């Protein structure tokens, strides 16, 4: 079963890191990605640019509204994701707990809706 791990970090906290800390953090991410490729959990994943680059669009009554910013202003922002293949929720939660951001922010785990 596939799960999407949505990674929420506090951008301010990440920005406040020293260059050395940021490099170490990225290093953890590279190592983690390698690990879940080896274990067969990895399906895909990406980091996102900061939330100031976000644009939200809504179409209402045929009228397009485009606004600057994310869908919701929150303390922690969606900063990236992994799509993983896991046996069950426990397996998925164990993978998610090893995502480096789990220590700083929050990882939301959502099962993928399969249509057949």
């Amino acid at each position, binding site marked *: 079963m596939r799960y999407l791990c949505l990674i929420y970090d506090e951008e301010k906290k990440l920005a406040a890191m020293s260059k050395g800390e940021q490099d170490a953090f990225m290093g953890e991410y590279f190592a983690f990605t390698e690990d879940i490729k080896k274990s067969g959990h990895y399906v895909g994943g990406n980091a996102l640019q900061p939330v100031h680059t976000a644009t939200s669009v809504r179409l209402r009554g045929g009228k397009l509204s485009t606004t600057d910013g994310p869908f919701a202003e929150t303390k922690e922002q969606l900063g990236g994701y992994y799509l993983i293949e896991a*046996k069950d929720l*426990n397996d998925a939660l164990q993978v998610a707990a090893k995502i480096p951001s789990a220590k700083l922010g929050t990882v939301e785990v959502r*099962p993928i809706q399969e249509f057949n």
Partner: protein
Amino acid sequence: MDVRAVIDEVYRTESRRVLATLIRLLGDFDRAEEALHDAFSAAIEQWPRDGVPASPRAWLVSAGRFRAIDALRRRARFDASLAALASELEGQTAAPVEWIGEDTLEDDRLRLVFTCCHPALQPDAQVALTLREVCGLTTEEIARAFLTAPRTVAQRIVRAKAKIRDARIPYQVPDRRELPDRLDAVLRVVYLVFNEGYSASSGATLTRHDVSGEAIRLGRLLVDLLPEPEAIGLLALMLLQESRRAARSADGEVVLLDAQDRSRWDHSLIAEGVRLVERALGSGPPGPYAVQAAIAAVHAEAATPDRTDWAQIVGLYDVLLRADASPVVELNRAAAVAMRDGPAAGLALIEGILARGELQDYQFAHSARADCCRRLGLVDEARAAYTRALDLARQEPERRFLERRLRELEM
């Protein structure tokens, strides 16, 4: 005994075990519940004719599984994916001895407990689901225990089952690494189940022995599986409370601790409880269950009420407040202070707690206040407080006890 009475008895003692196994075999709570229902329908039909089978539990598991697969095949005419599921279910459970052996069935009960108490479910839903699925309480009974509407409980259960199915929460006992984290939720739920049986939420029966027995059995299983101090502490606490069961009511009337006939306490349960308390306290900093069990043990070891070591009990409540602060614990400490230092000291503490508001609707806060007032000769205040407690009391024996206290005030 006629066959119908046998079936009722089997339902009472075996239906939850059968359900736990059917959930594993069928991979779905709702499907398993339907199968359980069908299995008992089949028993009502066949047992009077063919006799009661040698192992009713195994028979019911087989019958439930067979009927569930059969139902899937019938529905497969409208939904082709069900045919594959039916074949899969049939194929993976070919060896009956393996799936209905005694050990496997016990494992299934633990699987069910850990799944119902999975941290990915809302805490309220964990409790509701365990009481419903593991203990077989109705949504109405659960609602009364939680002072909430049956519809709310039903919704919690439906949502929890949907999450188990859709997010694929596995039906398993967590491995050693995960187990300690998962245990807290389970212990909390087990103790709530025990209390539901020990002080049934409303109606004419003061205790529902089988529900408490169920919690104690689960407690024992957990101690076997994971002898953590708090699991041991909880089992000790339940056994020590259980030991007073026979003495805590007489002719359907409530008998408080100080008035209980101590010769009617179950001394083998006390001995076992005390041994477990010592074991729980002997390993690391004491958790809330171990401390509560230690308090119960101090009561259990007093030969008469006036030989109770109240100083030690107050000290243990202080430890408990540090481990697990709550207004109810404060209230219990205040009642112990009333015994150690006299009713005036207790009353001052109780009034302070009531003034904060959290326990305004808690029956036992008002009855504890009433007891202090009564002992101080404050008849009017005692009467008002007993009356308030009576307004809040839902259990008949407790209501009669409070009515009796009110009558005694007028003498």
